[in-house]
């Protein structure tokens, strides 16, 4: 009885959540003249590829996509690697200064980025990194959220496993590589998805440090297509749809890391 009620609720909630997305897709396929019709039309009529044609014919969207992939890929890989390493250290190792370091990492998240962005920008200018990949990549190579997430995730791992491995003669790196990494996979999958999503959608920072069309990321590039006089919903939503595709692909690829089959019980067994 209950499970069915639950499942109906779940479906209902999913539909409501998807409503805004559905409108994005519908608008992307609508010709400019029907975008703002009332009552709102729920199917694109007539469906048209014109917004996508405008996107691909009138902009450097290919370059932007490549830039976004380079930046997001690097930042994601690095956060997963360094975040797991640091998260493991903070969760499972006992050493002087652990609490201090942990709370320092946490406190980095408290200051609103809208203000810290000013000194950070000054620093990037000092380094002469304007219009470069390193301006987009290096400050984000490791983010506090990543360490916090992995620390919380790895905390639940049974400590006996690590001790057992150590007794088997594993060195510190060996423990990390052979015991922690396989067990951390679900967490790493989650972290990869979160980081990818965050960096891919990052707007303000690339807007500020990139001035050149050939160096733009997708979000900034799409924004640069906006018209001064009106909101071009069709073009905007087509852009949003195109930009969401890689993230969907990434999500589907990585979600397999944390489906139900991986359980610690199995490892222990």
């Amino acid at each position: 009885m209950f499970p069915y009620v639950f499942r109906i609720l779940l479906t209902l909630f999913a539909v409501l959540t998807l409503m805004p997305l559905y409108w994005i897709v519908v608008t992307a396929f609508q010709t400019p003249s029907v975008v703002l019709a009332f009552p709102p039309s729920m199917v694109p009529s007539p469906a048209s590829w014109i917004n996508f044609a405008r996107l691909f014919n009138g902009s450097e969207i290919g370059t932007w996509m490549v830039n976004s992939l380079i930046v997001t890929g690097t930042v994601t890989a690095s956060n997963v690697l360094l975040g797991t390493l640091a998260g493991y250290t903070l969760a499972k190792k006992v050493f002087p200064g652990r609490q201090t370091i942990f709370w320092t990492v946490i406190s980095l998240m408290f200051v609103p980025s809208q203000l810290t962005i000013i000194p950070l920008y000054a620093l990037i200018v000092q380094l002469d990194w304007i219009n470069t990949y390193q301006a987009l990549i290096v400050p984000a190579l490791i983010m506090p959220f990543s360490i916090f997430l992995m620390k919380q995730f790895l905390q639940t791992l049974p400590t006996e496993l690590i001790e057992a491995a150590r007794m088997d003669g594993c060195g510190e790196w060996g423990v990390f590589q052979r015991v922690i990494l396989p067990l951390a996979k679900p967490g790493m999958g989650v972290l990869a998805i979160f980081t990818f999503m965050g960096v891919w959608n990052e707007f303000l920072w690339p807007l500020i440090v990139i001035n050149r069309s050939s160096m733009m990321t997708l979000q900034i590039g799409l924004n640069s297509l906006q018209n001064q006089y009106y909101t071009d919903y069709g073009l905007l939503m087509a852009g949003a749809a195109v930009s969401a595709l890689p993230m969907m692909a990434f999500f589907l690829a990585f979600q397999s890391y944390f489906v139900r089959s991986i359980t610690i019980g199995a490892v222990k067994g």
Partner: protein
Amino acid sequence: MSLTRTIFRERWAYLFLLLPLLLFAVFNMLPMAATILLGFADYFPGGQPVWTGLENYAYALSDDLFWKALGITVLYTCGVVPASLLISLFLAYVIFGLKYAWAQVIFKSAFYLPVVTSGAILSLVWLWLFNPARGLLNYVLSFAGMGPYLWTSDPQMALPSLMFMAIMGGHGAAIVLLTAAMGGIPSTYYEAARLDGAGPWRQYWKITLPLLRPTVLYLLVTSTIASFQVFTQVLMMTGGGPDYATTTLVYLIYTDAFEYFDFGKASAEATLLSLSLAGIAVLQYKWLASDVEY
């Protein structure tokens, strides 16, 4: 003496943390320190900061808008964080209980999808949904004989509208994380509980929830931070209005910095915001962090 020895014995720990900490020092702590210092100074772009002691704090605290913004931010956070967390826990539980992997994937994707769209685009879409004259919400409600409502155009409804938007759209990350953590719970625990005759509800209370505690703590802390720092929606949708009804702390800080070029006041406010967040985080930690025993 023994400390140095311990440090040497645990040298790997420091080595593992070295690179992240170095990067943090340059790209996070330096800007953070600059912000905190500016709170005690008056700074004009292109000039040198002039030290002014606590003047910025006095000015910020005597501004009735600061207190109003604080109230709005707390209200927003208290409304959004617990509601989102409870809904996420519920949805994650139901999704995890689905028999087929493909069904799980479909639902996880459904909730995750809104998160893949940038905040700016989502804000535009919600503005359209909220539009009093042409929006979908009023259109749908009109069939139930309700409305039309002004949503974000009404000072009384603007903040609840933003909260509604946050509660409706923000579960993807939490569900992904919670289901992943649930997948990490050894199945042997449930088997043992079943042998003891525990029903699904008892299993959830006695096994799932306690073991999810670190994850829930993570979600609680990060979503509190995110709610306390809510900004993009406010900037894109309401501009802090109408009549300051949605002027959150970070939005106030932003206008102080970039409209009034009063970086001293903005930095003082940012420091106060950070301190309150630190206080809340410590409390949340105290409440939830007692170590999990296996």
